[in-house]
């Protein structure tokens, strides 16, 4: 893997432009956005989706889908409420268990995809059904128990930092995840992961462990979904539909960031920026008073436009490169 170097920042610029335009528009639309606190609130609100989008990015860029993240988020929140049942003493081990559960779900998704050769779309669709059913089977239909104040700090509370003032925990966690993700994608493993999505056989021939990398992507997606669930539960409390539709929203965000479905192209920063843009867009629509009903129509137009732009703009030079894997070994 020395000769072949994908460009990591491929296609990051357009989404950053979109993001800046949206942020400036927000400043004009709402007085709250004329000061940093407003943007900090936006970041805090967007943190779970951005983290989910980063997780989804790993899977998408390696050529798969993870449709199970939405129901995984719901499951994690319901599990957290039941196990903590309002007791601060339970916070620490439950958080560890939640992250472990995220890893486990990612492992199962990844193993079935790589070992049993089931397309990830189907695996994660099945996982979506299983998680949705199993968690409510366990709690008898509705969430039980309650979250503890110390658990909710991560999604709701702030920490006082010198110079910056009160910064929400979720923003700090988000930054940590983002930095870690960028560093990971710059590492050899990250580059190979990207290459798996682009041309798996090349990676295989070069001695890359394709299955292991794919597995890693699903595990990362699972554990980040668990983290997003912790932030969401902290932010908004227990609810039975907290994760509803998040899988499609995360995929939308990733696509908005110019990441190619099918893998091989796109940067993690762009995926995160895509998620932030989506959240900023919803805030903007709300501020200027667009009816909630049209929100989804706007979202639909935007993702089609984003993909079409990616295919026609940045995609031109790729046109003559066959996208399909070359016929594999006999």
């Amino acid at each position: 893997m020395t000769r072949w170097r994908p460009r990591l920042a491929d296609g990051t610029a357009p989404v950053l432009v979109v993001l800046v335009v949206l942020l400036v528009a927000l400043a004009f639309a709402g007085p709250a956005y004329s000061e940093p606190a407003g943007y900090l609130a936006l970041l805090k609100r967007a943190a779970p989706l951005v983290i989910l989008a980063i997780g989804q990015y790993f899977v998408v860029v390696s050529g798969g889908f993870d449709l199970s993240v939405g129901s995984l988020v719901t499951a994690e929140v319901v599990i957290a409420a039941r196990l903590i049942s309002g007791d601060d003493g339970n916070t620490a081990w439950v958080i560890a268990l939640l992250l472990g559960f995220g890893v486990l779900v990612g492992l199962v998704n990844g193993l079935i995809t790589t070992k049993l050769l089931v397309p990830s779309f189907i695996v994660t669709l099945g996982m979506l059904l299983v998680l949705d059913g199993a968690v409510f089977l366990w709690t008898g239909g509705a969430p039980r128990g309650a979250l503890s104040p110390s658990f909710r700090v991560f999604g709701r509370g702030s920490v006082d930092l010198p110079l910056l003032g009160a910064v929400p925990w979720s923003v700090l966690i988000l930054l940590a995840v983002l930095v870690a993700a960028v560093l990971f994608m710059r590492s050899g493993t990250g580059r190979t992961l990207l290459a798996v999505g682009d041309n798996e056989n090349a990676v295989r021939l070069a001695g890359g462990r394709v299955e292991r990398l794919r597995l890693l992507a699903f595990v990362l997606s699972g554990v980040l979904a668990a983290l997003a669930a912790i932030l969401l539960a902290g932010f908004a409390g227990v609810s039975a539909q907290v994760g509803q539709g998040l899988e499609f929203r995360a995929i939308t965000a990733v696509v908005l960031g110019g990441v190619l479905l099918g893998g091989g192209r796109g940067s993690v920063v762009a995926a995160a920026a895509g998620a932030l843009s989506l959240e900023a867009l919803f805030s903007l629509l709300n501020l200027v008073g667009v009816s909630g009903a049209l929100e989804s129509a706007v979202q639909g137009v935007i993702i089609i436009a984003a993909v079409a732009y990616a295919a026609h703009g940045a995609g031109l030079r790729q046109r003559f490169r066959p996208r399909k894997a070359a016929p594999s070994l006999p």
Partner: protein
Amino acid sequence: MNRKLAVVAFAGALALAGCSSDLPDSGSAGTSTTSKQNAAKSEFFDQAEYERQLKFRSAKAVDLDGDNSQFKPWQQALDPKMVDTAKYAKPGGGYHLCFSNASVDNPWRQVGWKTMQEEVKLHPEITKFSTLDAEAKDDKQISDIQSFASQGCSALIVSPNTTATLTPAVEAACKTGVPVIVFDRGVKTNCPVTFIHPIGGFAFGADGAEFLKEKVPSGGKVLALRILPGVDVLEQRWAAANEIFAGSGLKVVGVEFTDGDAAKTKSIVNDYIQREGKIDGVWMDAGATAVAAVEAFQDAGTALPAIVGEDQQDFLRMWAKEKLTAVAPTYPTYQWRTPVIAALRILQGKQVPQEWVLPQPKVTQETLQNYIKDEMPPLHYAMCGCDQMPGYPQPWK
């Protein structure tokens, strides 16, 4: 292969039986031809029904067994017009009750469903209780009701998924001669023996709006949070509130849909706090996200508004803890007990109200403590009428 299959199936079917239809005969009352055409938002406001519901709020509840010793609203009716059920009488017990449920996909229905199951256990004369869950699919519920036709039900209880679309199926069920009991949402036909429901959406919406009108000073800003458009019960709640706000000095700064999602609710409320500076009152068409709304104010560090919630434990606990200025209209889950009671009355030949309107109490500051149950889950609905049932509290936990 496929063609052969079709041909075989066709021929076989022809041999088996002649053509038949499960479509009910025409001419029965209120077939869907009069259904609302492309209902606009305002169309949900119905002056006569609105006034009727507001009047029900002060009507005297009648206990059908004359047992007024205790608070048992699930066996009371407001202004009942009784109908004779002698033709359905089937003394001797051994009843097979059938229940076509719309879904159990939200905590309200979960609490209700558990309450109904416990109610069934109270009556040894019910020897079999069959239930089919339509999983919120109209089409499945139609099939469900059809398949009960061949199962020898003594009585059929239906909780329709939607009003207009389930009407033909309920009509067909009535035609089989089994007594049909409809509760929660209605259907557009009079053929069920009784239709059980609390007062309704207008009264619910009005309870909350009147509270805000009283507590928020004139000129104050009110934010209305709704779950989603198009559900008639929820539309009625908003239509009534809208009517009351229109005649008040209150300024409704926004009407938003939250999808019942706590995170979205918090974001919306946060946006409004930023946009308006101060919100004096929050009206909600359902309380599921009331806690999230209050938290948004806490997180923004602004004064807590007067708020309309519902009887869920998490909201009631927060109300007590934060000393909120609040009211909780209810859409009582105890109404799930009534259909079983009604079915038994019908099978015993006792009269029931044609339209069984249940009282629809609200939780106020004065009654708040009665409804806080610390051992119950956060999304438990307090107005379940279940805390005196023998099995309480285990099944609801």
